[in-house]
């Protein structure tokens, strides 16, 4: 689950990069390509779709191909659905770390990195950011590398077992379009 936290934080990296700063009320939209490299698989599993981040409200992650999976993360928890049918749900009341994730997010948005730095050694060179786990033998702690421009452009997450996720973000626009009614309903 730590991966989820890290990814969310990375999506708001602009707060750290000099240019775009996300604040409450902003809506960041974009497209993603996720490649999941797993041992014993012929080829990486590739997912394409779109996402939106609304600080203070949550994240909507919509995979379009190879099939439509929507994940909504809000302060209340995480809900995943396929074709409009809920397939799994994690509530923040049952998982306190989800609630802490939001504390961390809010802190990161305000430029407070202590939450992340408690778990990772964070280093940066030009547009490359690297997060190395402080406890490398923890099987749940991945290593993370990212390329950051105006927004986060690319992320690679390497797990101790050798599996690797690569995410490429594109077409990112800040406040190009407000939340529509359906999106607002998902984030309620």
């Amino acid at each position, binding site marked *: 689950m730590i991966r989820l936290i890290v990814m969310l934080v990375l999506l708001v990296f602009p707060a750290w990069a000099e240019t775009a700063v996300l604040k409450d009320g902003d809506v960041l939209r974009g497209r993603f390509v996720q490649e*999941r490299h*797993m041992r*014993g698989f*012929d080829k990486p599993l590739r*997912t394409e779709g779109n996402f939106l981040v609304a600080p203070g409200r949550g994240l909507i992650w919509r995979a379009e191909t190879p099939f439509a*999976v929507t994940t909504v993360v809000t302060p209340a928890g995480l809900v995943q659905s396929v074709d409009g049918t809920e*397939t799994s749900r994690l509530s923040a009341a049952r998982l*306190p770390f989800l609630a*802490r994730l939001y504390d961390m997010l809010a802190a990161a948005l305000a430029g407070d990195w202590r939450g992340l730095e408690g778990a990772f050694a964070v280093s940066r060179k030009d547009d490359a950011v690297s997060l190395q786990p402080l406890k490398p033998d923890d099987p749940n702690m991945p290593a993370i590398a990212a390329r950051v421009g105006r927004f986060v452009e690319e992320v690679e997450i390497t797990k101790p*077992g050798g599996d690797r996720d690569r995410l490429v973000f594109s077409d990112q626009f800040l406040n190009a379009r407000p939340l529509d009614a359906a999106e607002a309903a998902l984030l309620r």
Partner: protein
Amino acid sequence: MRTSLALVWLALVLAALAHVVVLARGGLPRETDIMALMPREEQDPGLQAAKDRVARELSSRVVVLVGHRQRDTARAAARNLRQSLVEAELVRPESDIPDEDAVRRLGAAYFAHRTGLLAEDDRQRLLRGEGEVLVKRALSQIYGFGGAVDSRLLARDPFLLFPAFLAGLPNPAGRVSMDEGLPGLVEDGTTWVLLSLRLRGEAFDLTFQNRFVAVFDSVSAQVPGGTRVLRLGAVFFAQAGAEQAMGESARIGLISLAGTVLLVVLTFRSVRPLLLSLAALGAGMAVALSACLFLFGSLHVAAQMFGAALIGIAIDYALLYYGQIFTPRTDPAARLAHVLPGMALGAATTIIGYGALALSPFPGLHQVAVFSAVGLAGSFLSVVLWFPLLDRAPATRLNPRWAAMATWLWRFWAETASMRARRALMAVLALLGVIGLARLEVDDDIRRQQGLSPGLAAQQAEIQRLAGFGQAGRFFLVHGENEQQVLEREEALDERLSGLTNRQSVARFVPSAKRQAENAFLAQQALHAPHLASYRAGLGMAEPEVAAMAAPLSLAQIRASGGLPFLDALVLDDSLHLVNVDGGVESGILRQAALGLDGVRFVDPTGDLNTLLESYRRRALTLVAASMVLMVPLLAWRYGMKGAVRVIVPAACAVMLTPPLLALAGIGFSFFAAMALVLVLSIGTDYAVFCAEDGQRDPVTLVSVSLAMLTTLLSFGLLAASEAAAVRAFGATMLVGVALAFALAPVVARKS
């Protein structure tokens, strides 16, 4: 002869006193568990043992929630509270929250046997042939955001059935989860940390509970500002109950004592009758305590409370004796001779009444019966043996106003002139009785009778809501010839209960070997065979590792991991398991659900107690009738058959009128009121006997009886002010019943 008898009695009383003092040096062995007063009338010893074990398990637990808006503050406060209680040796140091290693061992034990494990929802889907739903779920986890999927897991469990099994395990505290080694939850920005503690002492031990609550209070008073500490546990309820009962009995005792002293001193205008009465009372108390400790080994607070009040009746004999100073008789022997028949008959009928208490099935009431019967007999002997030797009082004139009132009451029941008034009074009483009877409601709910502290009950409700605990206490007992049969029977029960209520059964954590084999077969037939090839092809996935189904997962393996410590409370032995039920489903529905299942019994201790209270309420009424019948031969020997009936009538009327009259005041009829009626009968008969013994309608007799009534009302009637509904019902019944019995008593002297 008289003197030597008096001395023998004195020696006996002193010996009893010494016995009590020796035992009481280390603190009087007292008990406060209200349930100890309750009947243990279980036919099946196995069932009783299971009930006792569950009750013990529940009473030894304490659950605390510590909440603060700052997570770190809440965690530190919770750790500190636990630490303080452990250091004071009040709770066990070992935690019943499994540590990370135990959870890892548990996961490993489960994982090795994953082939036979299915979440219940998944099993149902596969039984319905809906394998494609599970395929879709696996794909959404692989392609979706986040997720705990990795290649090693997929190779061993391609459809991710194992994570679903783990997620589907029942959680006894549905909203609680682990957060860095401490269980807790977050709600509305407040972090709550849960402490689950096990007491090192008995929750119902007076000394232990006071020590525990004192330390708990002082530590939780030192928490940082903004911290909330919620508590739940039998020890808190017991302590609050005992504190209230003792505070109350001290208060009521004080008022009762002061009132009695004032009454006696004002009536006799001398301190000697008071001192002698107290000596008689003290002697009764000493022999009663000694007998109780000898027979039962400990004294129940309730027995002490009721018993002490019952002995209060003993003062009636002293008062009856001392009433004689208002007559011309000055020789103590003549005074005694005049009142002895009434006194002896009264004592005999009262002891018969209390003897009836001993016939009740409530062990606590046996103590009350022994305590009061022995105490009463002791006081009676003290009056008879000591008073004539110590009485120096000259003849005195009775207060004229009081004498006039007594004479008026005699006349009211005797003279033809007041015939109309008598009839009118009877008609009004009968009418009120009929109206009241129509409004009479019985109340057998033990929870209402216990008088639980409302503050603690509110905290209990809040903890149950926050943590998602169900109402504890109700369970199924599942019995079988061996462990496998028990597990199979639990699975049959589970199917009946699914959708009805939350429950924790061992079989939901460790399926029977039969079920595990079925699961493996089902997954193979309904999921792997039709879907695996296309699923793998779509993902480009290598051939999964096929786990050979070795020996099935056993309960012993899971328990040995230490990851599910609460299973220990569910396993009574290899052939007997508990299935805990929570949620508010009615007991009747649950009992119905298990109907026809072999080896399964539903147990609802509270509900059973309510049913028992109901049947004992009926039985108490039978007791009233029985003791009435038992008194008849004694009274008939003295007054003839007709006279005996007449002597019983006033008390019988009081017994029949009291519940309807109380119903008019909105007081329901409970077992405890019924037990009070037993006493109303014997006390009322006493009064009638005292009146019947008086041939001349001497106002002195009625003054003595009214003094007796007033002292009884002071000791019992005041219980009507108690916070505990059971005690209140008892007191109110005594108050109305005894007053009525007194007012009606002079009717017995009508014909003489």
